[in-house]
Structures are given as structure tokens and as C-alpha cells.
């Protein structure tokens, strides 16, 4: 049986376009807003969702996603509650691919086996664990793969050709090309470098290759999705949430939350339209 991720990429390909993925942090600024945001992303036309598991020390993230993690943790978010958001989401959206993205420590403390079982039961499709390179596969990634979760690999400009087979060995679902040597939310990559990297990785895998880091506008998203098999937008969306929290449009919390969701959905709608243009 093809998984949700495979199905979603096949559908985009049949429509002759790249896929759109959006990242938000679970619990930023609270669980209810996240649930509403996730619905908004689906309505706005994303092809897959990356849901960040907040961590106190996000080593590979820039200021925007660091701040999102802190807002979320300050609001009392936990890994248990993140899995709850995933489970609720799956009940509302049976087909939308959902990938959990984050750092290893909260999972390790939750318990690897328990986490894998609970993620599968919640209807999670895949994992991206930033600080688990293939050298550390045995503890989490291999058991996760055996339990039916996709292990999405990060490939970076520093991942040279001889290293790719090791990275791709356990990869499934899609591979995520981090187009800049850096942290999230900073520079964006030149078109030529994305195209070159795509060719280089394509020689070694048949999996869809999506590109992320530094994509902020509908134009960039469209171009990136054309140069590879999809684009992931994170910090630009997280910035809208941050702005809505810092500058509430209404004194009423529910109204303000609805306004944040509307703004995010409108922006993601533009991304989605650009990719389909």
C-alpha cells in the first residue's frame, strides 16, 4: 500500500507541478491555534505538512523558529500534546501527509519505542530528526522505518557524493535538500545551485527531492518547486504567527487567533497558487 506521502507526490506529479510543504511549530502559540492553523494549511492547498516538535535548544534553527519553539514551550507544549495534535489532525484529514520534525532529545526522554508506537497510532507519516545523521541511525530511525514511518533525510551542500549512499540507505517518503549551508530562516540559495544539487542527488535516488531553507515568497516557492520536486516554507509562515502574537489585532484571544489563521492561510494560498501557475 502506498503511503500518504507517496500518494501526495504522485498526485502533484500527475498535475505536472512540484509539491508545497509548510512548516509550523506545534503549540505556537498554543495547541488550539495550531489545530486551526493546520486546517487552514490544508484548505490553502499544501501537499504536505511538517509539524515542528518544540525544543529548548534548536541547534540548526535561526531566530524565527527558535522563538517559535520558545513561545510554544512557554505555552506549556509537550511531546505528548504534540502527538495529540497529530492524532486530532488525522481524524479530520485522512489523506494529508504529516511529518514530525524536531530534535532527538525530547523523543529520547519520551522513550523511542513508545514514541514510534504513539506516532504510528496517531497517523503520523514520517520523521525528520535534525540531529540524527545516518551514523546514529540504529536507535530511532531504523526501528521507526520498521514500524512503517518514513525516515526523511536531510541532504546539505556539504553532503558530498560519496556520502549520499549512506544518507539515502534508510531514506523513504522524500528527501529534503537543505539548499544553504546554514540555519533556517536566513539566506536563500541561487537557482543554479539548486538545479546542480538536484541533478547530483537525482543520480542516486528515485525519491522525490524537495528543497527548503530561505524560501520566503510565492515566486521563490514556485521557482524552487520547478527546479526540484517541491518547496518547503517555514520561517516566512512562522514570522506571520510571531507578528500576530506580538501585535494582536483584537483584545479578544479567540478573535486574534482567528486573525492569525486567516493571515497564514492567505499567504499559504498565494504560495499554493504560485506553484500551480
Amino acid at each position, binding site marked *: 500500500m502506498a503511503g500518504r506521502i507517496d500518494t501526495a507526490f504522485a498526485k502533484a506529479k500527475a498535475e505536472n507541478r512540484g509539491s508545497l510543504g509548510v512548516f509550523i511549530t506545534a503549540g505556537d502559540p498554543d495547541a488550539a491555534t495550531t489545530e486551526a492553523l493546520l486546517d487552514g494549511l490544508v484548505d490553502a492547498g499544501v501537499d504536505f505538512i511538517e509539524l515542528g516538535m518544540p525544543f*529548548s535548544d534548536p*541547534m540548526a534553527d535561526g531566530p524565527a523558529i527558535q522563538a517559535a519553539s520558545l513561545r510554544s514551550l512557554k505555552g506549556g507544549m509537550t511531546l505528548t500534546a504534540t502527538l495529540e495534535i497529530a492524532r486530532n489532525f488525522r481524524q479530520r484529514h485522512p489523506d494529508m501527509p504529516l511529518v514530525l520534525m524536531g530534535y532527538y532529545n525530547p*523523543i529520547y*526522554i519520551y522513550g523511542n519505542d513508545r514514541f514510534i508506537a504513539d506516532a504510528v497510532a496517531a497517523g503520523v507519516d514520517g520523521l525528520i530528526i535534525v540531529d540524527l545523521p545516518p*551514523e546514529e541511525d540504529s536507535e530511532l530511525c531504523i526501528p521507526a522505518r520498521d514500524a512503517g514511518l518514513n525516515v526523511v533525510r536531510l541532504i*546539505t551542500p556539504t*553532503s558530498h557524493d560519496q556520502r549520499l549512499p549512506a544518507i539515502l540507505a534508510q531514506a523513504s517518503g522524500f528527501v529534503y535538500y537543505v539548499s544553504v549551508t546554514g540555519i533556517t530562516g536566513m539566506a536563500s540559495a541561487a537557482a543554479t545551485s539548486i538545479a546542480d544539487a538536484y541533478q547530483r542527488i537525482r543520480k542516486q535516488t528515485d525519491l522525490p527531492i524537495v528543497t527548503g531553507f530561505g524560501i520566503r515568497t510565492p515566486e521563490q516557492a514556485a521557482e524552487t518547486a520547478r527546479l526540484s520536486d517541491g518547496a518547503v516554507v517555514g520561517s516566512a509562515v512562522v514570522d506571520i504567527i510571531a507578528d500576530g502574537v506580538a501585535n494582536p489585532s483584537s483584545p479578544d484571544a479567540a478573535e486574534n487567533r482567528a486573525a492569525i489563521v486567516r493571515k497564514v492561510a492567505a499567504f499559504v494560498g498565494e504560495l499554493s497558487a504560485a506553484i500551480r501557475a
Partner: protein
Amino acid sequence: MSKTNVNTFRNQPNEAGRFGIHGGRFVAETLMPLILNVEKAYKKASADKSFQREMYYYQKHYIGRPSPLYFAERMTAHFGGAKLYLKRDELNHTGAHKINNVLGQALLAKRMGKTKIIAETGAGQHGVATATACALFNMECEVFMGAEDVERQKPNVDRMRLLGAKIHPVTSGTGTLKDAMNEALRYWVTNAETHFYIIGTAAGPHPYPQMVRDFQSVIGTEAREQIFEAEGRLPDALVACIGGGSNAIGLFYPFLDDTDVAIYGVEAAGKGLGSGLHAASLTGGTPGILHGNRTYLLQNDDGQITDAHSISAGLDYPGIGPEHSWLHDIGRVNYVSATDEEALVAFQLCARLEGIIPALEPSHALAYLSTVIGDMDSDDIVILNMCGRGDKDLGAVLPVLEKLGRM
């Protein structure tokens, strides 16, 4: 080199950088190829006689090694127990043990053709040592330091600037050592191809914990020879303070297989272990993954790292090097702690009795002495690692001593 011998405590880490369950290489893919390069270069250098000669040259003529092993007669009389020897690494050029490691890594960076260096620092001693080596070898130096530490260790900030280093004050998190390390790693991820990261303690992804231990082991190797020269035998106990654990592992490692030698690592208990405001990762933490390695960490039930607290900027870190975590698990080393206030009292005591102003970090080791020495005979021998001098701490210490009515 890595042959398995069940009768030794000196056979770690394995090929994957593991010390028991601790250590490893938990880093983002961007850094992974670099870390493998550092490991390869370090393996090659450590097997190369000319690298050893170069190290020895700078240790002798630039750092001023060997550092003395000094019989602290008045403190010995004060405690009325075992004979106390101080391993005087505070006399090193730049005033702490940190330079031992920095010179090793800087020489390695030079061999790898890197001319841009980054470092994190807490107390500023590692930053100063790195800025110094960069001046010496004509390298660019950028130092990440928590904003709070920039305040409380100002003399070291001025020294680094004078030496030509660029300081990045870090305001994220609590603005202390953990956050400085996060930022240094982020900067390294961004400048992966051009920069070498000189980590200041025996922590981080493999091969750093091993490499830093090896460079710092000169402390224990010298101390072992010196105590044989002075007393004709091994000591009965070793005591050192623990931030990330580099000065401690440097003293301990050459003695690990001398199982009659009792070993004490002293963590910072801050305002007390029960207060929640401390930096004692082994006595108050649980294993987890941070900064590239698995090790004991201060964290909550959800795996979020909690803030450390210590009056000593150099000990104010919620983790510890993975080799200590392993030595703790197998019980070879006793990990204990001393509070802020105990350290301050010991700071003053050492100054008054020996004319040596210790750094706040080894003051924690000094503070634990009364517990160790009390139970020992007068012909027993204790070696304490005097790993840094206290000039940098006067601004932080004097007002507190005055407030305590001790000045």
C-alpha cells in the same frame, strides 16, 4: 590502538565515539562531513611524531609547562588531614588549563589549512586562550559568549578584544555557556566549509571529547611523574572541578587504571542541590542528547533543557563531557558538589593561606577538600587541580564577600 581490554578504564571511546552509552555524533547533516574530517585529521596527527614535537615545543616554551606540583603546606595544616598538593595549571600562559587544549586544536586546524577559528566561552578563559593561539598562528578568531557572562567576566572580554578577537555576545536563552555553544554551532553550520570550531571542554560530538581529553592529559601525566618524584608513590586521591569536565579528565585520565587512587569530580551545586538552582548534571540530571553528544543533562520530564546556575561562569553549564557520564555510570569516579557559598569561602581561604588567588571554578574543588581530607591520614596524599587563577573573578567575588561580612 583501540584494542579491547576489560581491565582498563582507558579504552574509550569506541569507533563511533561512544563512552558506554554516552558520546556519539548527534549533529545536523551540514556538520557531519566536517566532523568526520576533524576525526580523520586528528587520527593522522596523533600518530605523527612531528605533531607531537610541535605540541611539546609550544607546551614548553609558550605555555610554560610543566606546571609545578606544589605542596600546599598551610592548607594541609589547616585541614589537618592528608598532604595537599596543588597542580599549578593556573600558572600557564593565559592563566588556566584551557590553553593546553587550544594549542592542540589550533595546531590541528593549521594542519587542516583552516585559518578561521570560532570558539564558545563561559568564564572567558577558553575564549582568551583561543584568541591567544589565533594571534600566535595568525588566524581569525570569533568568540561566542553569553551576554550575562560578558558582564560578569569583563576583564576576559577586554583581553580577547586586545588580542584581536571578535566577540559575539549571545542573548538567546539565559545568555550563558549553553547558549553560547548553541550560537557557535549555528555559526559553524553557516560557515562550515571555512571555519574550524575549537570546543573548549571535553564535550560535543566525537572526536571532540576524546581530542580535548588527550590534549588536557598532559596535566595528569605530569602530575603522576611529579608525585613519584616528590613522594615516591601514587597519590591517594585526586580532586578537580567540573564544568564540561576538561581540566578534570585531564588530571584523572592518566590515573584511571590506578584503582587505589580515589577520584573526586566536584560539580557546582549553585544555591544548593535542593534549590533547583545548580549546575550539577551528574548528581542532579539524567542522560539525554545536547550539543552533539549523549550525556547527563539538566532537563525536565519533556526533554527540554533547563537552566544551570552557578556563581562560576565556567561551571554554569547544564551538561558534562560524555566520558565523565560513563565514569559515573561505572562508578570509577565519585561525583560530588559544592555550593556557591562554599566555593567563595574556599576562594578566600586559599588566597589567605597560600597566597594563591584561585579561579571560582577550582574554588569548588577546594571547597570539597574539607570533606575528603577530613577522613584521611596525615601521610595520605591528595592532588587538587588548580586549573585557573582568579583575577577574572574579583569583580564578581568581592561584592559578595563584602555582603557576607568576610572582607
